[in-house]
């Protein structure tokens, strides 16, 4: 199996699993218990906070916060890390050139550039972790229901629902094509053949997605509608929600105070 196929298969599996959270979402954990209408805005605030600073001393408590959420929500740390590691690594590789500069005919190394790349990746890790915590602990229908509650424009919600619906479709279709190609391969391909076949596979993928998306659209019509209308429930404000609000407010107050002092 060549590198392109292997990478595509790995990426497909990774993203497919990223959205499949059935094991965790219904556990009896801290974040799972929270009403999504408190949890999502609270987590959004926590997601924005690290974007306001590059100071590692101010960012590092966020790691403890994430660890607290992981443990209190009964999420296996290994599983959690397997979901988020790729994003900071990718951003680190993208920003890493900042640690090098041209010096005459040679290349110089900048310590501050490396620190910048590390902190940048740290921020990405925190943001992706918080987003991942929300996805892992909130059923998709509740996320949509919350967006409706906050009067997010209908067109935005529709785009989100469609993206979610078709992302699974795209990856399952891609995986099917890759497995079918693999099952019919009898010899090792040359580099040019790999690229040519890869291009063909991509073309087939687009055609198949287009055809399937039309059928999915028709099936959603047959089931009563195109725009997703999830059930909404009465707002819950219990001690757990009060604790979460106090906790997030305290953290925000400390973070802003720390940043400004």
């Amino acid at each position, binding site marked *: 199996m060549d590198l392109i196929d292997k990478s595509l298969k790995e990426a497909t599996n990774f993203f497919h699993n990223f959205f499949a959270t*059935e094991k965790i979402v219904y556990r009896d954990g801290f974040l799972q218990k929270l009403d999504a209408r408190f949890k999502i805005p609270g987590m959004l605030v926590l997601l924005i906070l690290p974007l306001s600073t590059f100071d590692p001393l101010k960012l590092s408590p966020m790691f403890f916060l994430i660890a607290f959420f992981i443990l209190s929500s009964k999420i296996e740390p290994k599983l959690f890390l397997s979901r988020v590691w790729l994003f900071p690594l990718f951003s680190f590789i993208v920003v890493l050139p900042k640690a090098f500069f041209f010096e005459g005919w040679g290349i110089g190394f900048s310590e501050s550039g490396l620190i910048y790349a590390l902190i940048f990746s740290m921020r990405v890790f925190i943001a992706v972790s918080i987003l991942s915590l929300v996805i892992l602990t909130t059923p998709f229908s509740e996320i949509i229901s919350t967006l409706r509650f906050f009067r997010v424009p209908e067109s935005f919600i529709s785009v989100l629902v469609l993206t979610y619906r078709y992302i699974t479709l795209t990856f399952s279709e891609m995986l099917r094509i890759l497995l079918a190609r693999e099952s019919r391969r009898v010899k090792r391909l040359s580099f040019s053949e790999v690229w040519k076949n890869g291009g063909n596979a991509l073309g087939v993928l687009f055609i198949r997605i287009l055809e399937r998306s039309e*059928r*999915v659209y028709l*099936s959603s019509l047959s089931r*009563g509608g195109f725009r997703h209308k999830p059930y909404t429930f009465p707002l819950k404000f219990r001690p757990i929600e009060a604790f979460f609000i106090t906790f997030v407010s305290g953290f925000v107050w400390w973070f802003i105070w720390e940043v400004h002092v």
Partner: protein
Amino acid sequence: MVYLGGSRLKAIVAKDISYTYPDGTVGIEKISLQIEDGERVVLLGPNGSGKSTLIMLLSGLISPSTGDVEILGYKPNKKNVEFLRRNIGVVFQNPDDFLFNPTVKEELLYTPAQLGIPFDEAIEIAEKFAKKFEIEGILEKPPFRLSGGEKKKISIVCSIMLEPRILFLDEPTANVDGKTRRKILGIIEKSKSTIITATHELEIVPRIAERIVLLGIDKKIKADGGLEILENEKLLEEAGVV
């Protein structure tokens, strides 16, 4: 409402309908059909004879290129779409096209939510059907992780749980094991709806139909009648079914 022939309500009336896909492929050609309320019809035909296209047209999901379709007395349009969706269930050939929610539970609650059925009532119906079809253990699972037979079962449950007046089934027993097949045929036999089933499997036809509409590879009706069509081997051979 349309009453023809003086007695039973016509569930579906199709007059000279044809459908051509955007790339020029002919889906079906000049088909006229009347299906009475409560009737059990099988659309029998070989692969590529237009059975699935005909189901899409007769259920009002796509509009014919030429001709007219009336469902329960209404021509499908934006004004009556909710009435039609409430009264029509469609089971697609490929359950992967049909199941697009994150969990089986959300699949079951999707249609009731779209049609504005109160949550408590929807949960009650979903639980009743989940128990009846032994899918309680997979309610929290994402549909794409299920086996082909389970997916098919879920899509059928989703379509029948609101007891539609007309139920369309596209190859309901294709690619399922014996147990699931028996269960599906049992559902069709017990249902009180008007049922239109597309299939190319001759052996299931006597169990689920009182009328056969035989489609040929030329995408036209070859014969329309009772179960005696199954005994006409020459006709079935001409149509490409055997």
